[in-house]
């Protein structure tokens, strides 16, 4: 017994290193596997508050870019409103009506890591729930992940785990957008079978199949197409319409039918 204690005492530094590292590993794995976070993140009110002060200051220096992106967004909305007013089609089921939007501001944003998260200043008090779509800068931004009372953490589209169901306008109805972790202006378009004829510049829109994002929102345009001889699918790069470095004001899309869809899916399972 004495020699055991002597052994433990001799290697106390190494043993406590192992213990502390296991604690850290537990925190990291808890977050990445179960999408559950403990106390240490910015949906915490105090930390969110400090970050929002900093965001207020930095947003002041980005005002020109913010105004510009809002103007672009406005123009796009006016154009689509025009289509809507001129050709009212009561037979067409318009998925956009299922969504309500909550306005929010980005408090903390990273784009340079492989798995980027965004903190925004709305939370459960504003009606935000887990797995809601987040839009900004005329494109899509991500999906809510941890919802705090006043702040929410969003899985950015620049996160290797985030997958968005998409379509190529007028050509392919089912494909998926995913980031490969290198260039923050480009995402990959997956699962486009080789028999389609594609061109550089084709626009990529949301398909609305997940029920998270409204249908027909712009994601980006095709910037490069490659087709290996024996590959079943194209490898396509898509340039994002929005620049994630510059976005400050965003919307959270709230699907009012999602609870019903979820109950249906749960009944099947």
């Amino acid at each position, binding site marked *: 017994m004495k020699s055991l204690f002597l052994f433990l005492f001799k290697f106390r530094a190494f043993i406590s290193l192992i213990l502390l590292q296991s604690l850290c590993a537990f925190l990291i794995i808890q977050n990445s596997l179960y999408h559950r976070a403990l106390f*240490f993140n910015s949906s915490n009110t105090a930390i969110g508050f400090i970050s929002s002060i900093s965001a207020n200051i930095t947003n002041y220096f980005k005002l020109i870019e913010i105004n510009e992106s809002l103007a672009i967004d406005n123009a796009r909305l006016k154009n689509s409103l025009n289509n809507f007013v001129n050709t009212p089609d009561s037979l067409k089921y318009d998925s956009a009506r299922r969504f309500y939007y909550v306005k929010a501001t980005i408090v903390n944003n*990273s784009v340079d890591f492989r798995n980027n998260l965004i903190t925004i200043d709305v939370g459960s008090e504003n009606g935000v729930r887990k797995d809601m779509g987040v839009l900004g800068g005329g494109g899509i931004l991500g999906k809510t992940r941890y919802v705090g009372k006043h702040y929410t953490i969003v899985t950015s589209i620049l996160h290797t785990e985030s997958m968005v169901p998409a379509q190529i306008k007028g050509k392919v109805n089912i494909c998926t957008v995913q980031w490969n972790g290198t260039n923050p202006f480009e995402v990959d378009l997956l699962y486009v079978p080789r028999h389609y004829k594609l061109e550089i510049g084709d626009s990529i829109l949301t398909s609305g199949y997940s029920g998270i994002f409204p249908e027909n929102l712009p994601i980006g345009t095709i910037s490069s197409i490659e087709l290996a001889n024996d590959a079943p699918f194209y490898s396509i790069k898509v340039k994002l319409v929005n620049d994630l470095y510059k976005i400050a004001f965003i919307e959270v899309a709230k699907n009012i039918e999602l609870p019903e869809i979820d109950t249906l899916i749960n009944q099947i399972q």
Partner: protein
Amino acid sequence: MNRYTIFKIISFFIYVLAQALIFNKVVLFGTAYSFIYIGFLLTLPLELAVIPGMLIGLILGLGIDSFSNTFGLHASASVLLMYFRPILISWLTPQGGYPAGTSPRPSKIGFGWFTTFAIPLIFSHQMVIFFVEYGSFDLFGITLLKVIASTIYSFVLIVVIQYIFISRTRR
């Protein structure tokens, strides 16, 4: 609680806020990241024992993690850094040793000494940060480039901060 301890506690919070609100956003060419909070860990007194050192590293790391939403990543890297630190100090300390309470700061202990001391520690810290964050060894080249670029960038900033902001009269 002497003056030095109070000074260190205040600078702890300043380091966390500066890292979270300013230096997390200062990334050069999407490759070089600045982790200046390592400077706090490096300049703790030389005779600090390994276990209290690792606990300080854990707390500081969790503070940084809270702001950057990395959940234990910085804590893990800082604990490892604080484990290696006394080992490196024992290699670098000359026969006679240093007077009690000496901080390894470039202006105090020599720039060459500080470089040999800081570069391997910062490098080990960045290795953990980037390879754990990537979760795999694919894109090994890009990740290693980020590690090396960030090591140099962080080191330069840490040295500059030591010379500019922390007065020479302190130990």
